[in-house]
């Protein structure tokens, strides 16, 4: 009697052990369920992204109507002679932006990313923008340099790009201001 019982127990236990080694059908069912939920999540993601696009455009149109909109961008070309820390922007003598860059952001700039540092509403006519770049220059020395642009704001939106480039001959950074219409 004991022998029969214990044999039964052994068989049951072995069956359990084997179950942990072998794959079971539950996994396939679970995968099917994951897939079905995943498809729903995919379609929701699409809808939320489209909604975000519409809301983003609405926000921009409300806050910065095209006829008064001016956007200021920071970009970097090479950036070997300058390690960017922060940028300060003054428009017509008034401080409008003071941005401290993280390592990740500087890396994104070096790789070709362009940062929209400030958006403003400006009247048509002449304006002046002054950008002060702070960071480490050649030989890891503290470096602070300004760039100025006088520009005319017309009726449409205007984009101003403040680009940090390397002047290889002088082994110095250079700050160039570009206008985009």
């Amino acid at each position, binding site marked *: 009697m004991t022998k029969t019982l214990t044999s039964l127990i052994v068989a049951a236990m*072995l069956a*359990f052990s084997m179950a942990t*080694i072998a794959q079971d059908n539950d996994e396939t069912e679970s995968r099917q369920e*994951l897939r079905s*939920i995943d498809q*729903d999540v995919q379609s929701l993601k699409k809808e939320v*992204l489209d909604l975000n696009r519409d809301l983003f455009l609405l926000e921009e149109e*409300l806050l910065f109507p095209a006829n008064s909109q001016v956007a200021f961008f920071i970009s970097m070309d090479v950036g070997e002679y300058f390690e960017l820390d922060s940028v300060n922007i003054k428009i017509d003598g008034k401080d409008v932006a003071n941005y401290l860059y993280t390592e990740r952001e500087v890396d*994104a700039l070096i790789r070709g990313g362009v940062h*929209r540092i400030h958006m403003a509403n400006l009247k048509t006519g002449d304006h002046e923008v002054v950008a002060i770049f702070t960071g480490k220059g050649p030989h890891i020395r503290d470096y602070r340099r300004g760039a100025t642009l006088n520009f005319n704001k017309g009726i449409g939106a205007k984009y101003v790009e403040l680009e940090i480039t390397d002047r290889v001959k002088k082994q110095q950074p250079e700050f160039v201001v570009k206008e985009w219409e």
Partner: protein
Amino acid sequence: MRSLLVLLVFVASASYAAEDDDEIVIMDPQYGEVLFHFYQDDYFPAIVKLLAAQKQGQLDEHVEDAELLLGGMYLSYGHHLEAAAIFERMLADNVSVEIRDRTWFFLAKIWYQRGYHEKSQEALELVEGELPKNLQREALMMQAQILIETGEYDRAIALLQNWKGRTEWASYAKFNIGVALVRSGRVDEARVFLDELGDMNPFNEELSSLRDKANLALGYALLQDEKPMAAKAPLQRVRLEGPFSNKALLGVGWADAELGNFRRALVPWMELRGRDLLDSAVQESMLAIPYAMSELDSISQAADHYLNAIEAFYEETNRLDRTIAHIESGDLFDEFLSTGPLDSTGWYWELEELPEGPDSRYLFHLLASHEFQEGLKNYRDLNYLHRNLDGWQDSVDVFANMLETRKEAYDERLPRVEDALARADLDGMVSRKLDFDSTLNNIEESHDWLALATRSEFEMWGEVTSLESTPALRADIPEAAEVRDKIQLLKGVLQWQLERDFKDRLWRIRRNLDQAGEALVTAQRSRRQIDETMRNEPLRFEALSNRVYGLAPDIESIKMRVDDEMADQRGYLRDIAVGELQAQKQRLDVYTIQARFALAAIYDIAATEGEALE
């Protein structure tokens, strides 16, 4: 284009930094702005900005690049179906076979991970050329795994048998062949592959682990095939401290037990006694020990061990019940998300650490489960969408207020502006300007130099001419003649001066008149703009209001669907976790019943023997 594709393809492989050599020249600042977010792995804002810029036609210089970037970002964000649609459209004919193949490979990989096995298989079939060696191996392995999981063992074996070389991949191939052969019931053939693998000299942790797995799989396959003697060798090759050691120790014990050597079987089983009770092998050993003892006629010791096992299983079952209750409350998954910041989303996110608590020990192995991690990823993404929509809901309220305030300010200013406009007689000014033009033309034509005299000159001319007609000057006396001469001289000088300055004055006046004309044109243009603004502003307010008030219910309805989906996803994760714990509980229940039966049998024997003695 090529550089972007290389970048995208390597983004999908999460190892792009070193490959990104080619410079991307930014022609539209908005495109650069998208890249700024993309390079920081902030896929959601990057995609939104790209979609917005596309809709506004701001990416004219990067039309194709932008579309491909969008595909790449969708892929990184886990929006793989949309990514595939873009790639299918874009990769049809304008990129090299190499890039296209890599893209299909990464799509196949993501689809495999998300359980879209047919799509994964289809994508792999679209690979035309030769993938780089490392990807080629991975693709082949993926294909074989799909075949094994769909039960096509022979095809999987045929695919893997051609594997050449002595790399880690070759070892995985052998393992998978072994698994496919075991599953198709060809244990003897499997033995050749798994034995070779189980006897190898591993040079890293990954291979050591694979070696253990192969030995364990072979050992249990042989045990099931009733070859306990042969099973012992592979099971004894499993490392004593590795993740598979508990099962190996248990198996070695069973092999000895099957061979009737219960004393030897007790050695590995007793080793298991001190280990974590959560492991099924440890639980099983708690029954195996008294079983061996009863076989060795140590009945009272066996009874003690069965009692200990019943007690331990009871406590463990209670702990499992508490954890199941906690999981069913649904709070646990939010605790998972609170362990890390939710500032970015992405395909490569994985939960690496469980929140601290009594439940953690039960959930560790869940983290290794593919479905659970993928489900958690979706849950995290949904949570992000929920927060995003929450933020927009607040913003839309602000937009509505802003719009109302602006409209009020506009309505307040409008009468004042209208009043000022009514007072400014622009048409009258234009007509006066035209009169001036005509007068000036007449002056020029008639060479009317006096018309351009200054007030003082004109008065002086008047005085001189009025003196001329004084009656006293007509007298025929020398004094009168002298004055007449002087008057003539004065007139002559004045006329000479006026005639000399005539052209210059005419030019100056015409220039001023032209300037006035230009100013009038500008004023007229401004007036037209003001009129247009006055006409359009109410329409603009209305359009913006419609958008603000139209989007608010959209946000609400999508938010509700996100909530529902989160509940479903939570349910799915809960089912996996609870299912896992229920299986553990069920196993403990079965073990408890077995222990009770065995104990009853022991008491029965003892009682029978007692009666016989009496």
